[in-house]
Structures are given as C-alpha cells and as structure tokens.
C-alpha cells in the first residue's frame, strides 16, 4: 500500500502546500463525489419507492419522501403474498443452489485432472474448454429444450435448468480452478504421491483445502449469474409456479405496470440476496470476476 500511495500522491508537508493541494484537488473530489451520487440515485430511488405508500408515489417523486417521512411495509406484504413473489423468491433459491454446486463440483474435479494428472490430449481438450467459455447461450436454447422434452419433460421440473446452467458454468469453472490449482506447490503433491496417496485423496485432502479462495470466487460468480439470469429461466422453466423472480417480475410489469410500489418492492427483493453476498464477500466476488476476464 505504501508504494501505491507514493506512486499516485505527492506528500504535502507544509501548511501552504496543503492549502494549494486542497484547492487544486477540489475539482477532483467534486467529480468523484458527483459521479458516485449519480450512480447511487437510481438504486436509492427504487429502494425508497418500495417503502412509500401508493398515494404518495402517485402524487410526488421519491425524492420528496425524505421530508414526508411516511413509510410502510405493506408493499412487501402485498408483493410477497398477493402476487406470489415470496414463492418466486424461494424458486430462485431452489434453482440457484444446485446450479452452483454442480458446476463447482464437476469443474473442480476436471480442473484437478487438467492441472495434475497427465492424460492423452490434455492440452487440446483444455483449449477446447477455453474456447467454450464464451459460446452464446442462444446456440443451445432450442436443442436443449428439445432434448429435455424428449427425456420426460425436464422443463416442467428443475432438472433442465440445473443441467443447462451446469453446462454453461463449467468452462469458466474448469478454467479458473485449473489456473489456480497449477499454482499450488508441486513438491507438496509429489510428496503425497510418494507416500502412496491416490489422486483422489490428493484432490480431497490437499488441493481442495488449499483452494478455498478460488472455489469461493467461482461459487459466488456462478451463484450471482444463475440468480440474476432471465433468459435461461424463461426458456427452461415453463411452469409458472416454478419460475424464479427474474421471470415473474416482467409478468408483474405487464399486469401491474402502473403499480410502482409493487414493482419497486419486488425488484428490491430480487436484489437483496446478491447485494448481501456482494457486501459480505466482496473480495471473492471481485476476484472471481477479475480472474474470469483478466486471465483469459
């Protein structure tokens, strides 16, 4: 950190230097604070709207709500119970958890193979997976729909969407985890082999415990990806009673387009979990994203 400071800031020592510095830096602070506020306004507006009473929403902008100071939780009650968003929220969880664990597990196993167990065509296969990382979902929608239908209506259950998300998360999982696994100390793994440990034991007892940050990064990335996904849920979950929030909110929009209180509350419900994850595990989240892009 010290080197960073010296790289970008010149230390001011005397009082007059500090004064000059303060004045010349005022525009800098102004720009940064203005943009930050600008970036916050849309989200804050939605959040405040979700706690306002419908007549207040209709008659004045959300920015008046601070002076009016008249809040309610009724919007949430209505949206959770009457419009079934509570149910949809649970559906989102049901979809997201297996769709995160499956690619994480399969990806970690494969990544270990690619990193530490030689086999024929290993590099070629890995390069194919690198290429698959950015295949657009659109090339899979129709064939998967047909495949799932022919396998006994997987579209009416959650199996279809779990499998589809697993397939789409896997390339990144393999790529990220393999790149992390190869940085583990070679001596450690060779020593375990000498002691007669099987590959699976090395995987479970050495590689996995040492790779928690990488595993967490991918898990959080995939969790948010699935939770926030609309298109795949739209296609692969046809039963309205099983659809996640991302699909139900646009329906809410088309049926209650002017009921801003409901729309705001529903959107805020959708955001709560990702934001909680983001704030609690920000470091892993950012790492996952960075690793997914910078290291390609």
């Amino acid at each position, binding site marked *: 950190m010290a*080197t*960073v400071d*010296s*790289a*970008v800031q010149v230390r001011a020592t005397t009082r007059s230097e500090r004064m000059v510095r303060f004045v010349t830096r005022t525009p*800098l*602070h102004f*720009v*940064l604070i203005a*943009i*930050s506020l600008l970036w*916050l*306004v*849309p989200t804050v*507006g939605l959040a405040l*709207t979700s706690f306002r009473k419908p007549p207040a*929403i209709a008659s004045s*902008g959300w920015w008046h709500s601070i002076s009016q100071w008249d809040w309610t939780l009724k919007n949430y009650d209505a949206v959770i119970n009457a419009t079934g968003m509570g149910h949809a929220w649970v559906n989102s969880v049901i979809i997201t958890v297996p769709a995160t664990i499956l690619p994480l597990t*399969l*990806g970690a*196993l494969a990544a*270990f*193979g*690619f990193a530490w*167990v030689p*086999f024929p065509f*290993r590099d070629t296969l890995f*390069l194919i997976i690198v290429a*698959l990382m*950015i*295949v*657009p979902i*659109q*090339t*899979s*929608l*129709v*064939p*998967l*729909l*047909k495949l799932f239908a022919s396998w006994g209506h997987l579209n009416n259950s959650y199996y279809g969407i779990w499998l589809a998300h697993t397939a*789409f998360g*896997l390339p990144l999982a*393999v790529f990220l985890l393999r790149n992390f696994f190869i940085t583990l100390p070679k001596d450690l793994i060779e020593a375990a*082999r000498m002691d007669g440990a099987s*590959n699976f034991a090395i995987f479970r007892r050495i590689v996995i415990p040492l790779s928690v940050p990488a595993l967490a990064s991918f898990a959080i990335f995939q969790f948010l990806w699935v939770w*926030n996904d*609309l*298109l795949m849920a739209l296609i692969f979950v046809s039963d309205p009673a099983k659809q996640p929030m*991302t699909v139900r909110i646009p329906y809410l*929009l088309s049926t209650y387009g002017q009921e801003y209180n409901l729309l*705001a509350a529903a959107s805020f419900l959708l*955001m709560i979990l*990702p*934001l909680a994850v983001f704030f609690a595990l920000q470091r892993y989240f950012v790492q996952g*994203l*960075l690793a997914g*892009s*910078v290291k*390609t």
Partner: protein
Amino acid sequence: MRLSSAFERVQGIVFVLPALIVLALFLIYPAYYTIRLAFYEGDFHYNFVHYVGLDNFKQLLTNDPDFLDLSKFPPGGALINNLRWVIFYISLSLLIGLGLAVLAVRVRYERVVKTVIFLPMAIAATAVGIIWLFVYSPDPDIGVLNAVLVGFDNSFHPIAWLGRPDLVNYALIFAYVWASVGFVMVVLSAAIKGIPAEVMEAARVDGAGEWNIFRRIMLPMLSLPISVVTIWLFINVIKVFDIIYVMTGGGPGTSSRVIAFTMYEETFHNGRPGYGAAVAVIMLILIAPVMVLNVRRFRSEKVVA
C-alpha cells in the same frame, strides 16, 4: 516425474470425464444442432424440416427490415441497433471506467467510490431494467430524469425516453453502461496499482505533468487490461437481452431489438426455429474471433510451454 502407467492415464480421464460429458451433451452437441437447423425451416418441435440452404441468412440480411434495414437513414434493424450498442456501450463504459479508475486512486475514499460504482454489477438485469424504467418515466413525479429537466426549465415537456424510436436505444445503452462501468473501473484500477511506483516517480522528477504521465506512461501500460475489458464488453453487448426484454420488449415497434432479442422473438414467439437458429449462428460468428483470440493467447502463455 510422470507416472505414466496405464492406470495413471485412465485416472486423469476419470477426473475430467463427467465435465466433458456434460459439455459435449449440453454445449457442443446443441451448437452443432443449431448450426444445422439454420439451414432448415424447422417446425414447432424443432425438427429438421424442409431444407432451405442459405435462404434464412439471405432473408435476414437482405429482406428483413427488422433485422437489417439499409434503405432509410439512419439505417435500422436489430443488427444496426447492436452496432450502436457496440460503439456507444463500449466507448462510454471504457471512458467512464478509465476516468474513474485514474481519478479514484488519488483519494483516500477510493474504496467507497469503487463499491458504489461496482454495486450495480450485483444487480440482476431484470432489476436494473425496473430501476431505469423508473428513472426514465415520462411522469415527472416518478422519473427523476424528467423531474430534473423540468426543475431546470419549467416549460420543458417531459420526454418519453423509451417511447421514441430515435432515443430508445441510447436510453437502454446508458442503463447498461451504468450497470457495467464498475467492472471496467475495478479491473483498470487494479492494473494501475500494478504500475511500478518508480516509473511514475521518475517521470515526476523529470517534470512531466499529470496529463503527460497519464498519456505516455499509464495508457501504454494499461493497453493489455484495456483490451481485455473491451473484449468482455464486446461479448456482453453481443449477448445483451435481459434488459431489453424487461424495459421495452424490443419496442416501440421493433426499434430497440438487438440480435439476441430477434433470436428469442423469431424462435419462441413467431415459431420460426430455423430462422432463429440462423440468428444464433450469426451471434456465434460474431463471437468466434474472440474465441480464437482467447485460445491463441492462452496457448502462447501457458499450456504449451
């Protein structure tokens, strides 16, 4: 070093096999299926019915004004809209993200700025859509944008940002820029911190101004991360769908459709799976260069030592 007994060889494959099966079945086979389907008309059950050769592509590129319309000015259609996205989404995101990254390293509250700007990255496009539907609302008691404009000038007539074909694409693009800038900023600010302090110090001692330091030292050293971010933005833009589905449904009329939206619309609403598959193939073709680039870069770096 390498224990290349037959058993050992089999073991490696056992580890990767489950993943390979899933990928082959749910990613590679479907891509093949879609490419083939693009040469058929297709039916309600997505079978290969009625081979049409390249007709779907010909139709898309020459005879479908919703996809590509060069007859008017400015040209229109989903492909042109997506080009607008490529130009404006990428350049705005880069400009704002880079600007914020460069400025924020200079202040103590950098972390706060970064968190605030990055926050929308965690929000689902569905929610981003609703958030910006509010912002853009033509009712100045709901839409903060119109409220601010009316506040400046009482005679101002609130604009339906999403209701006007000439504005709708830019309104959508800005909402998505809002959601993506945090990523650009975080990547570039990590890269800026990787620039050795001595380099900047030396330039300062030699009397280089801040602008020169930025242009001649930072920018060249950031060229790799900038290209990585640009690629990420490009992939995003080719795949953009959710936010349009939520905010405008491709409208008014068809004026805010993009490629991915056309694929969805033709396949699942208009019952033309072959036509939709051709659109998906066009997406694949647009993204293919990036795949090649990724593989090349990776190969030169790590795999084949």
